């Protein structure tokens, strides 16, 4: 329990550092929010008025403290631009992000894992080589470019899919929702399927070399039984761990995929906020994704500790 308490403490500290780093970067950025709001006729007086209204006239450390104390109470402030509460804006951007991630995860697992197993079981076969080419292409192609190519072929030329836009299930029903997301899913999944196939392949190969697998094989178990009962069970844990962390990262939004397909997710929100110097929204989106990443790491650590009590000792140093 003390381990958990300390680990939680570290996580909070990490989030504090994240917010401080973001704050420092923000104040170093040229182009003050007040000047953008003041428009083309801005006079020093107008800029001063806006800074006073937004509390930007205070010294940066005071602003930071004020932000932290408010955020801790659950008040993330209002966007300087849309004037919506930050938290509710992020929460409206979350379903698109979740939709994009969910579909892509299913797709990349369905493609990546079988591909990885296949090429691990039959190394150097034609299947292994084809899989290698596919996965290498997947991880080497710029994701936004893949999106553009898919849009150009399947949306613009063939007209099978829309040219972007997000339609929620509530607005257009399940079919329209999925129809609008097929290309973004494919784009994102191509990249991750490549990584997962590679990772699965190396895991499976590593596990197959372990002694107990050799023993199982020596006992005369069939190859598929060895694979199913011994290899996959052990290879899956690291894959699930990786998946958890990747999903956590994607909760912060896939900026490029979102921007190519016009999906109003968390990533695009953050990108827009940076461009507009919308400080509360920048802080909100960065912390929102950081919370996911930090918690995913915490969960992974907890899982490993629970599965392998020896890890505890090393961590104490």
């Amino acid at each position, binding site marked *: 329990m003390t381990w958990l308490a300390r680990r939680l403490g*570290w996580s909070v*500290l*990490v*989030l504090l*550092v*994240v917010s401080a*780093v*973001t704050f420092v*970067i*923000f104040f*170093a*950025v*040229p*182009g003050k929010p007040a000047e953008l709001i003041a428009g083309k006729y801005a006079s020093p007086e107008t800029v001063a008025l806006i800074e006073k209204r937004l509390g930007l006239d205070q010294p940066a450390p005071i602003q930071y403290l004020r932000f932290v104390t408010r955020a801790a109470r659950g008040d993330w402030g209002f966007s300087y631009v849309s004037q919506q509460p930050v938290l509710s804006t992020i929460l409206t951007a979350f379903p698109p992000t979740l939709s994009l991630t969910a579909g892509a995860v299913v797709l990349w697992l369905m493609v990546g894992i079988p591909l990885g197993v296949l090429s691990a079981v039959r*190394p*150097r076969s034609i299947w292994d080589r084809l899989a*290698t080419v596919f996965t*290498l*292409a997947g*991880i*080497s*192609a*710029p*994701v*936004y*470019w893949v999106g*553009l*190519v898919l*849009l*150009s072929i399947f949306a*613009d*030329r063939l007209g099978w899919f829309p040219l972007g836009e997000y339609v929620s299930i509530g607005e257009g029903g399940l079919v329209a929702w999925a129809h609008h997301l097929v290309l973004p899913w494919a784009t994102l999944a191509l990249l991750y399927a490549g990584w997962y196939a590679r990772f699965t*392949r*190396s895991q499976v*190969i*590593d596990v197959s070399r372990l002694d107990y697998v050799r023993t199982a094989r020596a006992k005369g178990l069939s190859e598929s039984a060895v694979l199913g009962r011994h290899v996959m069970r052990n290879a899956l844990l690291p894959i699930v761990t990786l998946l958890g962390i990747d999903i956590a*990262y994607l909760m*912060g*939004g896939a*900026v*490029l995929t979102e*921007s190519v397909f016009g999906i109003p997710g968390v*990533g695009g929100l*953050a*990108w827009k906020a*940076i*461009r507009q110097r919308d400080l509360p929204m*920048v802080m909100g*989106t*960065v912390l929102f*994704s*950081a919370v996911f*990443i*930090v918690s995913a*790491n915490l969960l992974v650590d907890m899982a490993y500790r629970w599965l392998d009590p020896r890890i505890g000792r*090393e961590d104490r*140093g």
Partner: protein
Amino acid sequence: MSAEPVTATRSPASPWRDAGRRFAADRAAVAGMIILGLLVVVAVLAPWIVRHGLHQSAFHQRIMDTITIGGQRVEVVSDLGIPVGPNPSFLLGADLVGRDVLSRMLYGARISLVVSALGTLLALSLGITAGLLAGFYRGLWDTVISRFVDAMMAIPVLLLAIALAAVLRTGSIVVMVLILGLVNWTSLARIVRAEVLSLRERDFIEAARALGATDTAILARHLMPNLVGPVIVFATLSMAGNILLESALSYLGVGIQPPTPSWGNMIQEGVPLFNVAWWITLFPGLAIMLTVLALNLVGDGLKRAIDPRSADPS
């Protein structure tokens, strides 16, 4: 079973020679190396290739030019702003202001390769220093560095890079190198720290310390050589990642600024016309893919060569 005696009789230099031999026998890795070598040659020779064979379009107006295709006079860029596609004068077509896409891609190769390589070097120096400090001295060093690394890794890479790009403003090569370096060092710091932590418990370090070796001597003589393998592999793969990141930033308009061509900003310029003048976006994208692919092949090959027990049995 047979591995034991071989290890015992190894001379100190031979692991590297073995690795070299394994790498040379790895066809995929060699293929990657050849592609990479060709890219470097093309990038270095770009000014000469362009001067003799292709258009020099950096400082000449081409937007009003006309060329002859199949006996017909054609404007390089039409009145409505549509450039000519691939043809004998413009092998991969012209871009929106009438420049030759192929020539710009050759120049773009220089930018992309140099920026990613220097970015990787910066990440290496930062990451190794931080990792060594944290792993070797532990204590407060470790706590501060590790928490900072944790925090940096909790900010999505692309957002961090975009924010840094906004701070540093000009999209010059130096700035891009800074951004790539600042964004990438954290994962290496973690790798090095973990490596050092496991090494420092080993007998030979204990022995060296017992013999009165200074910290620097231990670092230089015993730790660094053992770090070379993982660092080289990291460097190749991180360079691949840097090429993608640079192109993504340029695509979002916060990377290398025009008129300096980078593959990413070439794609970005073509986006409004991606469904008509497809050649502007297609070819630079293929170039990125090919380069990253080659780097990945080399990186995988290095990993297999340095640590033969890793994933691939070959």
